[in-house]
Structures are given as C-alpha cells and as structure tokens.
C-alpha cells in the first residue's frame, strides 16, 4: 500500500516537475530582449529531450562500445579479442546465419501476407472487410512471449502412443504420419522457419492496416484508365497499384526488419537457442545474464548496433523523401 502511494507520488512529482521546469524556463526566456527570446526559445524546448536522449541512449551506447574492448569484468583491456573469439565460434556464426535468414524471410513474409489480406479484404463488403481485418489484426495485441506460448501448443510433440495435444501433430498423425518433434528438427532449418511463422503471424495485421490504407488511397482514375487500355487485373495490381503504394511497402518492410534484427523473445521461449535455432539477440542475453561475460555481451550488442545503423539511415531518408513530396 505504502509502495503504491509512493509510486503515485513519484509519478505526480515527476510529471509536475517536468511541467514546472518548462514553465520556469519559458518564463525566464520571456524576460529576454525580443531577438534573443526567438533565438533561444527553440533550444529551451528541445534541450531537455536532447539531454535525456544523451544520458539514457547515447552515453550507454558509447559505454557499451567501450566495454566491448574489455574482459568479462570490464577491468582489463583486451583489444579486439572479444570480436575475434566470437567470430571464430561456430555457434555464434550459426546464430548470425539464423539472423540473416530471419531478416530475409520475416519482413518479406509479413509484407506479402499483409498485401494479400489487404487486397482480398478490399473485395469484400464493408462489414466483411472490417470483420476479417479485426481478426487478422488481433494477434498484434499479444506480446511475443504470449504468442510463443500459444505456438508451443501448435508445435507440441508427444511420443507415439500418447494423445497428441499439438495442433500440427494432431493433423499430421490424422493423415497417417508418425508424430514429429517439429521444434527439434533442423534439417533445412525447418525449426527456424517454424519460429518465423510466429512472427509473421504476429505482424501481418500491422502490415495489413498500413497497406490497406495505401491501397484505398490509390486514385480510381488510374485503375480505370488501365482497365480501359485492356490491362488484366494482375497487370493492374503489379504495374499500377504497387508502384503507387511502394513507399508504404518500404516503410512496413523496414519497420519489420528492425524488429526482426532485435528478435529474442520467440527464440527464448520456444527453444532457448537449442536445436540450431539461436540468434544473436538470445546469445547476448545468455552471455550477459547466464555467463556474466560483459565484454563478449557488449561486443555482440555493438555488432547488432552496427547492423541496424544503415537500415535506420535508409528509413530516415525514405521518410524525408515522403515528407518532401507531400
């Protein structure tokens, strides 16, 4: 009870404090002579945000990069040893390879599935469209951990002779197959692909909403003009509609790509990285929390960060272009 009151007071004090800070600073700036007021005012308002981003984002990132050149306790300088060790370990390279697979398959899968749903739902009555969309969007409300727990039951395996509680195995054995331990089966990375399905299932709703809105924004004149010129529906879709929604496709793709780069929860819950399904996000947690090897964990994060930066730059550019053409 006391804790709850304290938390409430802390929130009040925090919000109130922020509010008061802006009020006081604003009041001070207003005392300045006219020209100076205009010059300084923008910085007064953006300043605190920059300070917070620096303290809570830039500083930890730099500190992590720094620690990645030190040993497990962060005491002794070891140069590039952490990077060299990691990149020489087959299990880490394996995790990297899995990450690449995830990056190729998941964003593409999400965009394609989202596009298909958006286009097909567009053909339905308004009511039908809304119902379908609501169902497809529903998984978005579930956390990654929650979704993984659900999918554990889809892929569950029981030895022959016991009732199959897993959906996939129930179907499989119904058609005469022997029960398969899906999650343990890494031939052609089958298990990794099965885990990717979970993420695609989760994110399709997001892609669908954005793409559906974009498709509805395509001017009907362009579609009708193509139809009069004798284009087939498929030609219309790929040569008239898709080019006009391309920037949305890219936005969705990149957003999911960044999400996929950081993927951890699904792997942690479903396999813990066993059976050849490890990814670097999970590997990082293992190194930091289970093994207490700060240097190696930092090195992994730095590699992840380096991989994300180009994608981020691309996304910011894309966003600016969109703003400019608006």
């Amino acid at each position, binding site marked *: 009870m*006391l804790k709850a009151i304290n938390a409430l*007071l802390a929130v009040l004090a925090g919000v109130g404090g922020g*509010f*008061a800070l802006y009020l006081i600073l604003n009041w001070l700036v207003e005392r300045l002579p006219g020209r100076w007021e205009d010059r300084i005012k923008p910085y007064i308002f953006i300043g605190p945000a920059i300070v917070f981003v620096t303290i809570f984002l830039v500083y930890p990132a730099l500190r992590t990069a720094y620690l990645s050149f030190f040993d497990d306790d962060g005491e002794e300088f070891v140069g590039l040893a952490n990077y060299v060790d990691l990149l020489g370990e087959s299990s880490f390279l394996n995790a990297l390879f899995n990450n690449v697979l995830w990056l190729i398959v998941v964003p593409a899968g999400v965009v394609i599935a989202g596009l298909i749903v958006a286009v097909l739902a567009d053909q339905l009555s308004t009511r039908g469209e809304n119902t379908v969309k609501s169902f497809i969007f529903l998984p978005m409300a579930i956390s990654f951990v929650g979704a993984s727990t659900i999918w554990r039951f889809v892929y569950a395996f029981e*030895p022959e*002779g016991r009732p199959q509680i897993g959906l996939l195995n129930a179907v499989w054995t119904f058609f005469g197959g022997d029960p398969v331990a899906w*999650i*343990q089966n890494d031939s052609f990375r089958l298990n990794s692909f099965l885990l990717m399905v979970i993420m695609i299932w989760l994110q399709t709703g997001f892609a669908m909403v954005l793409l559906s809105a974009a498709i509805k924004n395509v001017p009907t004149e362009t579609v009708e003009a193509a139809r009069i010129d004798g284009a087939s529906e498929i030609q219309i879709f790929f040569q008239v509609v898709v080019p006009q929604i391309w920037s949305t496709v890219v936005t969705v793709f990149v957003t999911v790509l960044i999400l996929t780069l950081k993927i951890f929860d699904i792997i942690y819950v479903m396999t813990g990285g066993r*059976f050849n399904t490890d990814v670097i996000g999970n590997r990082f947690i293992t190194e930091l929390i289970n093994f207490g090897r700060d240097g190696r964990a930092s090195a992994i994060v730095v590699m992840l960060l380096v991989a994300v930066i180009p994608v981020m730059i691309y996304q910011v550019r894309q966003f600016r272009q969109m703003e400019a053409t608006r």
Partner: protein
Amino acid sequence: MRSRNTLRIGALVFAGSLVLSGCLGAEQGGDGENQPVEIFGGITGTEEARLVEEAVAEIEEATGVDVQYQPSRDFTTIIRSRVRGGDAPDIALYPQPGLLLDMSSDITPLDDVDVGLDQVRETLIPGFLDSATKDGKVYGAPIDQAPKSLVWYPKKPFEQAGYQVPTTHQELLDLTERIKDDGETPWCIGIESGPDTGWPATDWLEDYVLRTAGPEAYDQWVNGELKFNSPEITEAAETVGEIMLTEGNVQGGGKAIVNTPFGESSERLFEDPPGCYLHRQASFITSFFPDKVQENLDEEAGVFVLPPVEDGYDGTPILGSGNFAALLNSENENAIKVMEYLISDKFGTPRYEAGGILSPHTTFDTSKYPDEVTQQIADQVNEADVFRFDGSDLMPAEVGTGSFWTGMVDWIGGRKDLDAVLSDIDESWPSS
C-alpha cells in the same frame, strides 16, 4: 483566471507530493542494536517463500533481531548487480556455490567471524562444506539440502507386479529388462525445463561419474582437471546412455526425453496403469506428484538410492544440492547473530516439516520430517559414505549452465554423437 487557479493547485499538489515522498522514503533505517537484517535469496514461489518467512520468524524469535527476507527469481543476476552497485544485502542465500566462490572477494569468510563454525562442521553432512571452501577459507554454509540420487517408483503397482528394489547396477538393468518383458515401459525421463533445459540430464551424468569413476575423479572433473572426453567420463556417460537410450526403456526415446518437462515426466509414475515404473529425481520432485499421491505419499510412492556400479566406486555416493548462506555485511552485528542461527542445526523446521527439503545436518531429528519417505531418505543420506554437491553448479557458468546443458540435450535428442558432445563441452571450458 481559471487556468491560473488550476496552475496553483497543480503547483501545490506537486510540492506536497515531493514532501510526502521524502517522508515516506525515510521510513527505514535504525542502527546499532536494532539494526534490521536483510536476507536476499533465490527461494521463490508463494509456498516456498512463505515457508522461508516462517523459518525467518523463527530466527527473529530466537535472536530478537528484525529480519526481512527478499526473494527474487533472478537471484543470480541481481546479486551481482547489487553487490557491484554498493547495495549488497546483509546475507545472501546462494543456490550455486560456484557463483558464491566467484564472488568471494565480497564475502566475509565464516572463519573470521563468530558464528560457531566448528560446531557446524561437526553436525553437517561430511563433504558439504567443501563446496563453499576456497584457499582454506569457508565462504558459506548450507541451510538446506535436496538429495538427488533417488529413484522413485509407484509403490502399489510395483509390489503387485512382484518387482524388487535393486541393490546393484546389474539388478537395476535386470529390472529394466523384466519390466520391458512384461510389456510395460520401465523409465520415465524428462529433461525439459524452459531456459534451463538439460539440467536433469547433467544430474544423471554426475551420479554415474560418482558411481563409476568415484568421488576423487568427480572432484577433478568438476575442477576442470579431468576432461569431459576422458575415458572415465565417457564411460559414465555410456552407462547413462544404456539406460536412457536403449530401445523401449523410455516411451518415445531420446527425442521425447528432450521434449518432456521434468515435472510432468514424474507424474506418469502414478497414471493408471502406470506410464512407467522408475523415475530418477531429487527429493523435491514430490511436490510435482499428483495431489492424491502427495496426500498419501507413504502408501503411494516408494524410493531407493540409485544403486552402485559393480566395477566402479566401492560405496554409495549421494549427489545433492542446497542453498548456501553467505555473509556480505559483517559490520552489521545483528547479521552475524542471524547467520549463526541460520547455519546451525536448529534452523528451518517449518520448511522441513512441509517435505521435499531436508536439513543438511546429520543431527537433525528425522522424526520431524512429515512422512516415512522423507525420513527414509534422510536416514540413507546420513548413512551414505560420500556426499558430493551437484557438479554443474560448481563448474564455470559457461559450462554448468551452458554447454553442459545443451550438450546433453544434443546427445540425448540424437543430434550429435557422444564423443562430439563431450569434446564440444571441453572446448567451451573457459581458458583462464
């Protein structure tokens, strides 16, 4: 005008809350004789934590000190960050002596304070304290134990079928064959445990290293002096494999073992007809048994110590685990007082009365245990020639909670052969 008023009220609320939170924040404190003692530990779960608190109340009564128990599921992570951040608890309960010794520079050796260590040394199960000893100094003492070298069976069907409790490894193998000949499944084995999957299998291997190669080889192995791919460890693993992976011994074979949660596998003993007749697991597994079995444990469940191997070590070793109390703040005199009680054979009665967990002291009155099964286990542990702590908890974390677990999973699941797995584990052993 209205907005001005709102503003004023806002400012008032803001100032008021600052003052109030300042007051509320200062509720704790006190020093000298009344200084409270904080115990931080990894024993969680509503029932378990409640029992610890009951046991702590017992300390408060005996010592007159105000004690608070703080449980955390992430003990292993948080204890490191708390100590590094200068916010160490007075006393910590380590589930892994390996981690305790790893942090020994922050811990006061028990030899240096007056906690009655000599007395404790006499009453403890011999060998238990060695797991928390480094360079001749004792850094922690056990407050409980869960013996692991136990095989459980469903008493009624087992006796009806005319099976006998085996006393040697050969008899165990013969019994396994006989159960198979009767058209039944002999063993239930499950090693799935979420992110910790694999640990029950490491216990199996440790048990058989003790039985085939003996305690001395076991100690060398745990310290990294004896390799995983040495003939001794390979032989022990092959003995485990003979039980786990022989066709028909476990329903569904290795793939099912890897896939089955360890708690669930124990329940199958008590299905009707029994899903299996034998299950090797620590004493705490009783809390996973079906309710109707737990209520009548003595009538429903039987237990025996995993028998010795004929050509191996001459004697019956017991593998076990437990929580170790360590003193992190020796300046708090009350903490020393609490520590003395905590590690003595007087501590913990409410927990032991609930079953599944035993006192690490041979002098503990076994009649206080709730059922015959637990009393029988306690007697057998006290009679055992050798006690050894769970080796994976003593090995470096990269191995003990990493490659050893995944290695066993890869081997039993049939993804890699034994030699490859053992070499992989050797390779992952940290060099320094």
